């Protein structure tokens, strides 16, 4: 009994440790000035992708439901957080404002998760995939036609253009439809990103190893049996899904505070983004949190590192995807891999010595 507990705890600490070690290495490299500016620019997006991959793994791997609209929740978090920061800039200390933006962005995204989950998660089958797919596109398109301005009288909303906001003199347009929000304070740093990764990991890993996490995984493994031992299916599905959405929203706030201008393009909040995150999860291993981190890091860095190869870079990216897929999921490849784990190699050497 103690053994299982220490085993999962140990595995969790390896995951936390891995993140901290990578953080330390990057800090040392930055201090010695051996990081290119390209790489430095990638650090915050890396953190964002890792948070997104880990949070999506909660829905896909732990809850066992397919979600194709994770970028939609990120989009909500980004715009809510950015809007809050723009409105509150200068009224409170920067640190507190950014913290509140993170909390608010995550909370609003989680509320949207619940709103979508209530009708959809009661159904069996892949309805969540279809609805989240539509949700992601709808959110992106709504944000693209949303105009919000502020003047002395308060906030003005419009879905047409800046003129129809009817702002009084001295009013300021905050959300400019397709032009998005510009001038969000650039608060996101690599350190904050890593802290948020650790926060995400603590939430997800501790949830998995608790009473509620067991209930969630029981539903994934056998819904009928879970019901027969008195597990409230809808409640736990909603819990997992809204936490996952909230964490994606938090990643969105981080994203918004890393850019001068935040716009909702197909590239950043569209269907492709949702699929990219799903690719991280699938390649890292469904339900494998540490795998998600590694896959997100490798697959984000790869296209950038291969930039020198110009035309061939997407080709190599695709080949790496295929190879990772085979190595991760083919039983034969797994058998070969398990033969060459460090532990087994060590044992082999030992037994060879004993023979001699």
């Amino acid at each position, binding site marked *: 009994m103690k053994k299982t507990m220490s085993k999962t705890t140990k595995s969790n600490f390896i995951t936390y440790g891995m993140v901290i070690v990578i953080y330390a290495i990057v800090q040392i490299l930055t201090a010695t000035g051996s990081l290119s500016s390209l790489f430095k620019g990638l650090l915050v997006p890396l953190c964002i992708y890792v948070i997104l991959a880990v949070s999506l793994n909660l829905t896909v791997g732990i809850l066992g439901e397919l979600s194709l609209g994770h970028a939609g929740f990120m989009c909500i978090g980004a715009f809510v957080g950015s809007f809050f920061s723009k409105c509150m800039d200068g009224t409170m200390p920067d640190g507190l404002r950014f913290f509140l933006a993170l909390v608010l962005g995550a909370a609003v995204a989680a509320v949207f998760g619940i709103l979508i989950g209530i009708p959809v998660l009661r159904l069996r089958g892949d309805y969540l995939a279809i609805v989240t797919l539509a949700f992601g596109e709808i959110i992106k398109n709504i944000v693209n036609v949303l105009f919000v301005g502020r003047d002395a009288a308060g906030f003005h909303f419009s879905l047409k253009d800046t003129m129809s906001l009817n702002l009084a003199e001295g009013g300021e347009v905050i959300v400019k439809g397709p032009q998005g929000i510009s001038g969000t304070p650039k608060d996101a740093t690599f350190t904050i990103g890593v802290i948020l990764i650790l926060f995400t990991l603590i939430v997800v890993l*501790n949830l998995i190893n608790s009473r509620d996490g067991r209930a969630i*995984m029981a539903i*994934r493994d056998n819904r*009928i*049996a*879970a*019901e*027969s*031992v*008195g597990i409230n299916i809808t409640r736990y599905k909603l819990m997992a899904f809204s936490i996952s959405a909230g964490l994606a929203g938090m990643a969105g706030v981080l994203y918004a505070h890393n850019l001068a201008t935040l716009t909702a393009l197909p590239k950043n909040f569209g269907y492709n983004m949702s699929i990219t995150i799903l690719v991280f999860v699938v390649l890292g291993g469904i339900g494998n949190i540490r795998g998600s981190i590694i896959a997100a890091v490798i697959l984000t860095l790869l296209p950038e590192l291969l930039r020198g190869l110009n035309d061939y870079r997407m080709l190599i990216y695709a080949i790496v995807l295929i190879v990772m897929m085979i190595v991760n999921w083919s039983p034969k490849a797994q058998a070969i891999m398990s033969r060459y784990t460090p532990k087994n190699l060590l044992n082999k050497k030992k037994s060879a010595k004993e023979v001699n």
Partner: protein
Amino acid sequence: MALLEVKNLGISFGGLRAVDGFHVTIEQGQLYGLIGPNGAGKTTVFNLLTGVYKPDTGSIFLDGHDITGKKTIDINKAGIARTFQNIRLFKELSVLDNVKVGLHNGHHYSAIEGIMRLPRYYKVEKEMNETAMKLLKVFDLDKECDYLASNLPYGKQRKLEIARALATEPKLLLLDEPAAGMNPNETKELMDTIRFVRDQFHMTILLIEHDMKLVSGICEKLTVLNFGQVLTQGDTSTVLNDPQVITAYLGE
């Protein structure tokens, strides 16, 4: 007062009257058998009792409370737990965790306490681990507690399912063909386990079984179902020697 009192229970699927006019009375502490040829509607009766299906007619009273047409989780909370004909374990969870899912409603801490690892998390988890290990020990599964449930041999999976059902602290335990796929030795061991569960936990047990050795060995009373209707019921020896029952099983 009887622990379980079922009257005139019935359900139709389309034009098929799967169960019709089913009635049974089970006293506290009884080991009751439900038998009948294939397709007689035995598992459908279990599904009606546990709220998987809603009955068209009839009423179910557990310990004096009406549980007719309630949801599965409410019926489980009211005190009925079951196992399944085709084993339904949480395959990717450990043996210990399977039982701990069964303990879910008996041990509480909030999600926040779980995520923030507040003191109550450690306290309740410790209680759960101890209770679960005690249960596993009863079924001789304590050495396999950190195996994945899907890696257990067949007979032990059956036992784990019973342990998980008992973890919900039911008043009535429903076993759906517990001896299916077991060899004679395993069946004999299972009979001892079932008797032990009844005596140790003061449990009332209703079981579906085809293995007549098991049925005649441990059941005190029997109900025979045929084509969805009660053919006969009464003491085991009387029922098994009833010519009607023999005809139903073997034909004219």
